[in-house]
């Protein structure tokens, strides 16, 4: 039971010692002034402050120790008397160690010359006994009560000093472990008392990391020396802190570092102030990129040309990415060239306006053609550009970013950013560029859709006008020949009906083309009877819109005539409608049989003009009506479908 308590106490005090931080500074003989004092007061040749660790005792202070112990600064436990003071937690008074049952075998006697020993425990504020203050003589000495009292008084002072050091080292370790950078500084004034600079008096290790300046290079130098050309605000604002006694907060860039800092400066009296800060470059850049994207979104909404859109994209890239040259160019994807009409260049960077061939700058155009953004950290090492690095040297480019704009699977434009130095493009930068690319692509898509809609509207308006012109032509010409208003009205509405049936078919194909089977079927439909007296057949074939309208009108005229005078006017007549290709010509035939005998008409009206001349002209061919007494025959010969040059009807 006792044994376990002792072991527990021992491990507690060792832990307390190690936590105190006193072991770290022990080589500096930090408590040497106290041991000097002990030698004076007790008139002994040697005095020590020991810290009793697990397997060694460390001298936190010593005076008069013989070599080599003074330099070693510690001994193994085989040489320690102090461990007994610590174990007991009470003073140990030894007049002659050689005659002490416990100590007579201790190596300190022979190796260090310890004969008489008076030690008192050193206790930390939390009660842990961590070492001893001891007076040592190399000859026998009977220690008096006064000796012990005096030593205890000095031990109390040592303990107070230890407490101060522990507290200070705790603060220092917090200060050093701080993620924030810390500066203690003093302003420097000119003769007139105006603050012109400030000097670093102390910085923590975070400062070095956040600023990227080697340790040991900064204390004792001024901010203008450490960062030549630094922005005046970094001096003037801190001068204000000292002059007004008011703390400030700041978010500012050190331009020469390209890094942003966010922090607070606090006056601490006199000409001194402290600064505590964090690097916020990432956050600032992220905010800048977000703003750039928002602005781009606003810009894109109102832009009406691809060039304006891509220009806005370049502006966004310039805001969100740090580069030395930014611009865009039009791509000829077949010849793999790019035309750049203007670009923005940082000071000292050459412009690259003009025409360039992609292949003289490596193979990355292959990626661009696939619509992939190309980001090259260093043209000298990237496999796509390493063999053409010289071409890049000529345009002062080490790092580059290319954003492809693709339309209908073709590379049409490129937005680029070039850097004079190698630059590891970050994921955030690439994501930003991709977002700019997506917005740009979407805006161009919207523009194209609007263009398409506008074109479609114009086209529809045009077709509508054309249809109305046809209606008008049919109406006026029909009326011109009509015997009565009633006859005219019926003829007009029948002809417009034929026109409308063809239009129905064309509506399904955007008014571009129609299958002849459908057109003939629809045109004959009103005239078909259950007795199947009309036969029709032929291959599929594509008709232009005009041809479809024409065939529909022609069939209407022929069927109407057949119903009135021809094969469909009696009980036995038949009509055979065929079409197809003959000798590379399109041939359409209407043949009547078994009707009443045919007499050629006395007067050729609009109907036959329509059939023979107008419809035939839609086929670039000719139409002929043969008034054979056995039955009317009509033959149209011409070009098929879209082979003929034509405009949309």
């Amino acid at each position, binding site marked *: 039971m006792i044994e376990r308590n002792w072991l527990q106490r021992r491990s507690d005090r060792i832990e307390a010692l190690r936590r105190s931080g006193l072991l770290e500074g022990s080589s500096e003989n930090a408590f040497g002034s106290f041991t000097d004092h002990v030698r004076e007061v007790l008139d002994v040749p040697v005095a020590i402050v020991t810290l009793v660790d697990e397997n060694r005792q460390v001298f936190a202070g010593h005076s008069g120790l013989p070599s080599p112990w003074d330099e070693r600064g510690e001994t193994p436990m085989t040489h320690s008397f102090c461990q007994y003071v610590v174990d007991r937690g009470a003073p140990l008074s030894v007049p002659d160690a050689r005659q002490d049952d416990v100590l007579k075998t201790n190596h300190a006697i022979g190796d260090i010359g310890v004969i008489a020993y008076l030690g008192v425990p050193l206790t930390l504020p939390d009660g842990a006994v961590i070492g001893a203050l001891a007076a040592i003589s190399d000859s026998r000495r009977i220690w008096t009560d006064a000796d012990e009292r005096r030593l205890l008084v000095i031990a109390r002072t040592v303990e107070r000093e230890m407490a101060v050091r522990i507290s200070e080292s705790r603060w220092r370790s917090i200060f050093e472990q701080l993620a924030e950078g810390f500066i203690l500084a003093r302003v420097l004034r000119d003769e007139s008392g105006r603050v012109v600079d400030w000097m670093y008096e102390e910085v923590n290790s975070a400062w070095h990391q956040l600023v990227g300046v080697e340790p040991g290079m900064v204390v004792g130098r001024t901010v203008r020396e450490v960062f030549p050309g630094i922005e005046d605000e970094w001096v003037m604002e801190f001068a204000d802190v000292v002059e007004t006694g008011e703390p400030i907060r700041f978010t500012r860039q050190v331009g020469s570092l390209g890094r942003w800092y966010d922090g607070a400066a606090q006056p601490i009296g006199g000409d001194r102030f402290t600064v505590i800060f964090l690097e916020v470059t990432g956050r600032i850049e992220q905010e800048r990129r977000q703003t750039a994207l928002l602005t781009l979104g606003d810009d894109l909404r109102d832009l009406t040309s691809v060039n304006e859109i891509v220009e806005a994209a370049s502006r966004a890239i310039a805001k969100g990415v740090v580069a030395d040259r930014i611009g865009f160019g039009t791509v000829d994807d077949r010849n793999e060239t790019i035309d750049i009409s203007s670009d923005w260049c940082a000071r000292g960077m050459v412009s690259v306006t003009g025409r360039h061939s992609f292949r003289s700058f490596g193979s990355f155009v292959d990626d661009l053609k696939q619509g992939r953004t190309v980001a090259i950290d260093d043209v000298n090492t990237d496999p796509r550009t390493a063999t053409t690095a010289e071409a890049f040297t000529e345009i002062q480019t080490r790092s580059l970013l290319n954003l492809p704009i693709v339309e209908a699977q073709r590379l049409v434009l490129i937005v680029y950013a070039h850097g004079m130095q190698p630059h590891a493009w970050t994921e955030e930068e690439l994501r930003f560029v991709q977002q700019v690319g997506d917005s740009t692509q979407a805006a161009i898509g919207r523009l194209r859709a609007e263009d398409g809609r506008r074109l479609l509207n114009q086209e529809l308006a045009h077709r509508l*006008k054309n249809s109305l012109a046809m*209606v008008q032509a049919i109406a006026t010409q029909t009326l011109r020949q009509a015997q009565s208003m009633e006859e005219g009205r019926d003829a007009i509405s029948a002809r417009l009906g034929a026109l409308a049936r063809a239009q129905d078919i064309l509506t399904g194909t955007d008014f571009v083309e129609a299958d002849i089977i459908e057109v003939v079927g629809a045109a004959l439909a009103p005239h078909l009877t259950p007795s199947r007296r009309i036969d029709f057949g032929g291959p599929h074939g594509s008709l232009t819109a005009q041809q479809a309208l024409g065939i529909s009108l022609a069939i209407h005229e022929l069927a109407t005539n057949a119903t009135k005078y021809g094969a469909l006017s009696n009980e036995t007549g038949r009509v055979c409608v065929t079409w197809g290709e003959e000798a590379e010509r399109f041939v359409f035939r209407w043949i009547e049989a078994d009707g009443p005998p045919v007499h050629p008409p006395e007067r050729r009206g609009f109907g036959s003009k329509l059939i023979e001349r*107008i419809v035939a002209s*839609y086929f670039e061919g000719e139409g002929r009506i043969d008034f054979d007494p056995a039955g009317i025959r009509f033959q149209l010969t011409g070009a098929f479908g879209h082979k003929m040059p034509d405009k949309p009807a």
Partner: protein
Amino acid sequence: MSQSFNPARYAVLIVEDDALLRSEAVDLCEEAGFTAFEARNADQAIAMLERHPQIRVLFTDVEMPGTMDGLKLAHAVRERWPPVTIMVTSGRTKVALEDMPENGLFFAKPYPPNGIVAALNEIAGRIYD
């Protein structure tokens, strides 16, 4: 000119690729007393003008297949045959004024037959003067 006016001695050249519309225009011109020539495109029109000096009016559609549209044709005619009166028609919403040849007349499609006849009569009157 002391002889009496006989518009049939003067001709209108109708340039229109749609046969139905062309045939309607021919009827209108003949109604106004003019002789009518027909062309389906600008090339045919130029050939007609070269062959028939009696053509005094060009009545052309704008939208046509071929290398030259109606407006280009109108300008070419204004250049080569200054006395020829030019009438332009189109289904497009508008033809900009600056695209029209000098003194050209514009008729939106579908055009009013009476308007065309009236314009032709007026032209005939001017030629007679």
